[in-house]
Structures are given as C-alpha cells and as structure tokens.
C-alpha cells in the first residue's frame, strides 16, 4: 500500500519543483476561453441601466419604450419602485437584445425616476461623517497602555491609512446563461464553481441539480466573485424570457463602481518603546468605510502584540458603493497602519527598523522563528545593512533612496474539497474537482499532486476542474484552495493507486503492501527487477476503470504563514515622484507544491501592491455622489515600467515543508503598501500618512516637514 502522507524531500519528483502552468500556452496565445469569450448559437447581449444617484428612492421605472427598441428580446427589472438605492451604479433593470449596441441603446431608453436623497460619499472621519453615519465598535484592550506610555523612552503619534480601492478585475464580473427546458447553464466568472447552483436554484425555482456552472478559466476575482450577484439572476431571467442564451458582463465603469471595493481604514496611533527598542504600549482610534455595511473590527496592532494595547474602531456608513472581500480582508490596511507606526517609532528611538523588529520578534507569538529567519533572509537579499541609512539622511541632488520593511501573516488552511481520481485501463488518468483556477495555478498544483502520487509525469494526468458536475470543492477564498485541492487530490490519487496495486499484486509477487508507483512503473520496493510499466499495470483492470474519491485531509495541510517584505524606493524630492527600485519577499507557505507558481503568486502580489501603494484610489465626488475615475484612464494601475526589480524567496526545507500545505493567495499582497510607505519615509525623512503615495502627497509632506523645521 502506498502512503498518502507527503513524500520526503528526497522522494519528490515533481512537488516543490519549478513547473510551468498547464494552461500557460493556452492563455498566452489567447486560446483559453473565458466567460467573456463564450459565444452560444443565437446568443443575445444583456445590458443594465444604473442609478446615477448615490442615494435616492426609485419612484418610477418605465420600460415600455425600451421594449419596443430594435432587436430587444427581453426586459427584466432588478430594482423595485419605492426602494432606496444606496450607491451610484445600483442596477435598476436589464435588457437583452440581438447586438451589444442595441442592448445599450435599449437600456438607456428605460425611464427611471428618482426622489434624490442626501448622500455621503467622502472618506470622512467620524467627526465629519456625524453620528448618523458612525458606529463605534467595541474596544479591544489588553493590559493598560496609559501608564506604560508615561514610562516609555520614546513615544510617537501619527495618523495613517489607505482609501477605498476597487478590485478592478481584468475580466469584469458577469456570465453567459442558457436554458434548455428547466436546465440552466451558466458560464460564470466565479471563484465558487461548486456553490453557485445553490444560489441560482431558489432564485430560478429549479432544483440545484438543474444548474450547470462552467468556469474553465477566469480573469481575476481577488475576493469579489463569490456570488451569482443581481446581474447573474437578471441574466438568467433574460435568457428564460427570450428563450436564448444571453451574455452579460459588466462594462468597465460599472465594474469599478460596484463590483468590488476594499474598505478604507485610517487610524490615529500612539505607540511607545523603551530605550532599547522594546515595544511597550499601543493605542489606536481607527475608522473607515465599507460603503453602507461594515468590514468588521480590525485587529490593531497587526502581528505584534505588545503587553499593553488598546484599539477602537468606528465604522462609517457611506454611499461610496458596496465593499467586498479584497485579498486578505483588512490585513493590508492593518499592516500599513501598524508597520508605519512601528517604523516611525524605530526612527524616534532611534534604531534601524530591522534591529527594532528583530528586537521585538517574540511579540509576534508562534511565528517568531519564521519571521526571524525571513527577516534575515530578506535583509541579505536586499543588502539591507549596507544600503540602510537613518531616516532623513540625505545625499546630494534631488533623488533620495530609502528602505522599508513589513511583516504579515495569514491563515490559509484548506477548504472542503472532494476529488475523484480515475485510472483507465488504457493507463490514462483523470482527476476531477468542482474547483476553479483564478489564475493562481491551482490546476497545475492538482496535476502535480496527482502525477507525483501515481509516479507519472505531469502530462499523463488530465485535470478536470471548473465545472460543478465534478465533485464539490469549496470557493477560492481565504487562501484555502491549495490546501483543499492538494490534499483531496492526494487522497483520491492514493486511494486509486492502492486499488490498482491490489489488482496488479498477483503479477508482482502477490503482496500489494510491497508495491510502489515510481517513475512510470509499478515496482516491488527495493527490487528493481520486479516491475510493470504503468500501461501494462493498468491493462490488468480489464475493462472497468478505477474511480476513487478523496477529501480534504487536515493532516496534509496547515494554517498560519508568516512573511517579510522589504522595499527600496527612490523619490524625486522636487517632483514627489516615487519609483520602486526593488522589492524583496521572504515568504513561507508550508510545503510548496509548485515553486514557480508560488513565486508567481508573490510577483503578482508585488505588482498589485505597488499599484495600491502608489496609484489606486476610488475617487468620489461629494457634489454629484459619483465615482470620478470609473475608467482605466483615471483609475491608475501600474504598468511594466512602474515595477522595479522583484526578488522572491520562498522559505522551504525543514521547519517549513513538514508543516504541510498552506495557502499563499493572500499573504504576499499584505505588506507592499507598508514597505513602500516605510521606504518613502526613510528616503524623504517624513511620513506620507496615507496611500496612495502620489507626487501631490509627497510634496505636501515635504512642505509640512519644512514648515516644522
């Protein structure tokens, strides 16, 4: 019998190697078919009419003109008369027409009347927002910070924060829907292939088994694509009414207005240390908006747990638009606030922040050893000790360089996943899971685990995912996919292999216990002369394939990763323009299945992080209640030329591998804002308090520093 535990390092043929993703060629050549690319016979196009007001009561919806427009085949209401909209971009109604342009024209011909109500769309402080918009959450307190402050050698106070940003998925939200009788097929751009049927079924009044969800590839979700959403149901209704397939994916402005936003968090922080740098007390008052809802109580300080600490958060309700989970919800904001305050404190002590963080490393708890190793590794890759200079120490000329660092953590674990592994008598192998690959490389990870388990090359395994007809697998959220799918696949493949070993045992000495699958053969352990090539072994199955199931196996996975990042920036003191010169990550995620896609995950996070550190902001206009930059022109994303040198080091080997598989989707995107903010402060000698760090803010910070000096 083969053991399902992860193989020891010396026995791994694929796991932990750098392996190119299976769908790389398809994607890079444009042949991968995203939901956006699905075209069905007779397909119509759906378009929606949106509320132009941030807060208003709908008093009338008249679709008669739209229904008579050329090409229109169906109209459906999304909103009701009498109901209040809470943000500009709220969907009111949808139409389906023969062409995209006809659908757009018809949607615009729907007459909606509103009673306009007062709105708040600014990223206001509790004082500015007023009591009606503010809800103070419960205080989190340990020890007593106030007396500790009185005795501290160094204390700093500062305000830090980051604004609302959007998910800005490259593939906007949406789907293609098609009915055949009472069977609904949805080609959805989703992070939750196995879950959506359960949402469509009650809405469409059909059994969940009648809903087929298909998502072979998808173009980014980042936490914003867990649900069917109103446009999913509207699309299915338009399909039903028209008897035709309907494609309805959001226009870019709609995507930026409503389909995902990361809440803002700002905080007034007071933090103190002893003369030797030991952190003794933290106190913070924070606030932020998640639109009309709340994004929960942030945990401040982040990662470090000084003995005396207290924090209180006020949730501000606004009409900015709805928030959705954004890659490591709240963590990037908490990291920015905490690591900025801590580096400011280190500068006040004064101390090199690397030494300061090392000094306090035990306050991070169980991951202290991981962080310490990572800090040292990252420092080596950044050449920190050589490059670092005390804050405010300048060189001649307008260009100043600076370094910054940050720590982060995330859970991971593994979601509930089911996998079927089928070994066919011809030797071919399939693994099937109702999971999805958001672009992370999940498909390839599944293939690697199955191939490793069966002793086969990666190409020998066919990976079936992205379809809810396969065994149910959880949504891809919380960095739980790799743990879920790798362990269920490992167990399924192992179970299938053991069945196969039992079948071939009679031909190889009779004892299945003594057999193993290695290098494309089934062989007797320790006796290289006794083996059967894989194909011949499978031929023993005669005509019936083996299908074995596997489920998430907690003993193969773990939770809780630590990561360290460092940034080097240069700042033009005369223009305030910040350039990221180099970023370094030392990242742990337990046992790495595919080193290449793990590294890619961190590279991608760096790029996303540089973007939110320097450019991203959902800019709202209080006068009109509208988003001013719901387009790719003013909603600024970094491009190739804006990304400096990126260095990624995955922590592997003893102490890491033996923890099992842990998720990596979110952790590396937590620290970039903090490290870039810290590096800028180190370069220019003063903190730019909020992200994004634009030339305007850098110049303002320099001016305020000049005024104080």
């Amino acid at each position, binding site marked *: 019998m083969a053991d399902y535990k992860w193989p020891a390092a010396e026995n791994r043929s694929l796991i932990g190697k750098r392996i190119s993703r299976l769908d790389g060629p398809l994607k890079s050549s444009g042949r991968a078919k995203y939901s956006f690319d699905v075209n069905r016979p007779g397909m119509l196009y759906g378009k929606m009419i949106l509320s132009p007001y941030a807060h208003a009561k709908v008093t009338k919806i008249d679709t008669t003109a739209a229904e008579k427009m050329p090409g229109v085949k169906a109209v459906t209401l999304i909103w009701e008369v009498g109901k209040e909209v809470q943000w500009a971009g709220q969907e009111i109604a949808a139409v389906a027409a023969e062409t995209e342009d006809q659908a757009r024209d018809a949607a615009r011909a729907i007459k909606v009347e509103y009673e306009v109500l007062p709105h708040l769309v600014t990223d206001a402080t509790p004082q500015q927002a007023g009591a009606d918009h503010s809800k103070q959450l419960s205080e989190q307190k340990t020890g007593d910070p106030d007396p500790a402050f009185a005795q501290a050698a160094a204390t700093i106070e500062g305000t830090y924060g980051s604004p609302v940003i959007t998910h800005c998925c490259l593939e906007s939200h949406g789907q293609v829907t098609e009915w055949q009788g009472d069977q609904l097929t949805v080609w959805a751009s989703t992070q939750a292939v196995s879950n959506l049927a359960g949402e469509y079924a009650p809405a469409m009044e059909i059994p969940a088994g009648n809903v087929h969800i298909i998502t072979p590839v998808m173009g980014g979700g980042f936490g914003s694509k867990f649900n069917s959403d109103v446009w999913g149901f509207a699309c299915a209704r338009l399909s039903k009414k028209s008897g035709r397939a309907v494609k309805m994916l959001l226009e870019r402005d709609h995507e930026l207005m409503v389909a995902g936003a990361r809440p803002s968090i700002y905080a007034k922080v007071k933090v103190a240390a002893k003369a030797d740098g030991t952190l003794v007390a933290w106190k913070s008052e924070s606030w932020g908006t998640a639109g009309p809802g709340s994004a929960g109580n942030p945990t401040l300080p982040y990662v470090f747990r000084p003995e005396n600490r207290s924090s209180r958060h006020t949730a501000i309700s606004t009409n900015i638009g709805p928030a959705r989970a954004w890659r490591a919800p709240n963590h990037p904001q908490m990291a920015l606030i905490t690591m900025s305050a801590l580096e400011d404190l280190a500068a006040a002590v004064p101390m090199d922040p690397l030494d300061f963080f090392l000094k306090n490393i035990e306050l991070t708890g169980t991951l202290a050893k991981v962080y310490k190793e990572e800090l040292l590794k990252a420092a080596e890759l950044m050449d920190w000790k050589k490059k670092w200079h005390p804050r405010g120490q300048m060189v001649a000329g307008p260009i100043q360089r600076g370094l910054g660092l940050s720590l982060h953590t995330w859970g991971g674990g593994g979601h509930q996943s089911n996998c079927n592994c089928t070994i066919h008598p011809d030797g071919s192998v399939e693994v099937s899971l109702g999971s999805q690959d958001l672009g992370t490389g999940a498909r390839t990870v599944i293939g690697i685990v199955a191939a490793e388990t069966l002793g086969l090359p990666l190409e020998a395994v066919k990976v079936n995912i992205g379809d809810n007809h396969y065994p149910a697998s959880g949504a891809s959220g919380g960095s739980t996919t790799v743990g879920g799918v790798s362990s269920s696949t490992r167990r399924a493949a192992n179970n299938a292999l053991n069945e196969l070993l039992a079948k071939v045992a009679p031909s190889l000495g009779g004892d299945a216990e003594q057999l193993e699958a290695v290098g494309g053969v089934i062989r007797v352990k320790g006796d290289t002369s006794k083996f059967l090539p894989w194909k011949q072994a499978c031929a023993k199955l005669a005509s019936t394939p083996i299908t074995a199931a596997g489920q998430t196996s907690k003993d193969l996975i773990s939770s809780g990763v630590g990561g360290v990042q460092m940034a080097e920036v240069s700042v033009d003191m*005369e*223009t305030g323009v910040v350039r990221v010169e180099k970023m370094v990550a030392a990242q742990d995620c337990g046992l790495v299945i595919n080193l290449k896609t793990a590294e890619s995950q961190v590279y991608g996070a760096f790029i996303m992080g540089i973007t939110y550190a320097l450019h991203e902001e959902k*800019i709202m206009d209080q006068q009109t209640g509208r988003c001013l930059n719901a387009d790719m*022109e003013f909603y*600024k994303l970094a491009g*190739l*030329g804006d990304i400096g040198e990126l260095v990624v080091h995955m922590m592997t080997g003893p102490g890491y591998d033996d923890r099992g598989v842990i998720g990596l989707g979110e952790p590396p995107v937590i620290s970039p804002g903090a490290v870039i903010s810290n590096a800028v402060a180190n370069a220019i000698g003063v903190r730019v308090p909020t992200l994004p760090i634009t*030339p305007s803010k850098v110049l303002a910070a320099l001016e305020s520093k000049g005024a104080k000096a």
Partner: protein
Amino acid sequence: MEAFEYARPASGKEALELLGGSFADSEILAGGMDLISLMKNYVLSPKRLVNIKGISEFSGIRSTQQGLAIGATTTLQELIEHKTIAADYPGLHQAADAIPSPQIRNMATAGGNLCQRPRCWYFRNGFGLLARDAKGNPLVPGGDNRYHAIFGNDGPAYFVNGSSLAPALIALSAQARIFSANGWREVAVADFFRTPRNDNERENVLQPKEILGEIVIPSASKGLRTSTYEVREREALDWPLATASVALKMSGNKIEKASVVLGYVAPIPWQAKEAGDWLAGKTLNEETAAKAGEAAVQGAKPLSGNKYKVQLARVCVKRALLAAGRA
C-alpha cells in the same frame, strides 16, 4: 455609442462637403484615440464621422520654404521616427516619444493630438465641457480638482489641455494651417487654442467646417536648443501631470531669446512669457534655470487640490532649460 454615419472622403474638398454646420452634425475623425472613447461614453454623439486619414493633402512630412510641414494625419509614430525632427527639434521629438503605448502612437495623429478634448473627469463623465451641475454651478472648484488647471482658471473652464505636442510646437513658433471652403488660412499654434466661454464653443479656433490641415515649424536656425520635460506619476498609459517645452536661441552659453510653454496646467497650452522674457540675455545655468522656473509660476492660482502642480511646473521649466542647454 449612438449610431452614426461614416464617411471616408478622398480629398479635402470632399471632406468639407461632408462636414455639417455644427459639431453635433459631424466630427472629424483622425486616429480616433480620443473621439471614439468619448462617443462610447455618450459624451459626444455626432450624427456623422468624417474620416480624414485617407486624404493625401493632410498627410506626410515635407520640407517647404517656410520650414517643416507636418500633415495633420501624420501619426505620432511617424513623427517620432522622422530624422530631421529628432535632430533639429528634440523638444518636439521628446514630447511625442513620451506619449504612451505603441498602439496609441501608431493610430493617433498630430492633428488629433492638438484637437483632443480636455482631460477633465467631469467632462468625461458627462457633466459637460464646462463641468457644471444641474443648476449651472461649476463642479471643479468645489470638487476633486487634483488634475485641473492652475493657470487661466478663473472660469468658466477649469480643465487642462491634454496635448503634449502643443507646448513643444508653440515654443517653436509653429503655424497651424487650416483648410476651409475659403482655402487655407494660417494661425500661430499659440493662437489656435482658446478657452471656451460656453458649452458650444471648442477649445480651439476651428469652426465646424474647418480642418486643421498641417502644422509648419520654421526652419531650425543656428543656436536653436529645444527640450521638453514632463512629470508623470507612472510610466504606464497615462498623461503627464505637467510639462514644460522650451526653445532657446543660444549664443554660446548665453540665451538670446527664450520661449517657455507649459502643458497640462491650463485650459490652453500656457505660455510663460515672464520666464521667457526674463531669460533673454542670461547665461544658462542651474541658478538662472531655477529662477526662470520661479518666474514661470508667478501668476499660478491653484485650486483646492492641485497646489502640487505649481511645484511641478516650476521644476519642469528648470529641468527643460537645463536639458536644452546640455543638448
């Protein structure tokens, strides 16, 4: 976008016949890099587009007695690759070369670049050229104006002109040649732009039945030094936050005559005359360049959120001058 008629005339005369009496009737289409996106967003909905890219009179770059004539439909890429421009007018070459993305440079035209519509998110979100609310009050002063004007912003326009080429051309004293039923007329590129007083006016002197046919740059004289310096927040697809283009007539280290033009700071390309006048007779060095930058922003009146642009304009002038001196 709304449905429209599409015409592709073969001659300037034919184009004029196809153009309507108002901008609502027809728009000239060149590379479409700006116009099409405005139409897609329903900001503009002309009934007819008249594509002028097939008209030979408006194409190509040629040397004339007056100087170098750049046809309006010359693409930015052709302009960048032109050897004389790169050698004799580096300030113009730099301005064109910094405009992002090969796709845009291959499609966008010199004429379209000058005539592109304002960079203002209120305008682009459908609040009208002059960005006013339903009651007619201007939105920019009390709104988010981080990318708006710091000069010439007494209203009713607060937007900035989005052309990188215009300041470089104005610094070179280029002429715009305009084709209409009355034949050709010429205006200095400096006088081509104007601040509209109402939503029906344009940001330049063109009437609905007029076409910008070509731009003529006077032949490069001895001692001409030009340069453009831009500040961009990012390298990716974006416009500059501010630019300065300078043209100097130098004799040795000494400036005989200087023209300093700022971009992205006003509803029109902004001539910093004080800076130019002040520079005449000075020796070009760090100090004079910095002082010229100071002079250039003397009259700036930032709005609530764009004070930083004053500093950017100041630095652009200084750095453009120093670069011109080094060239």
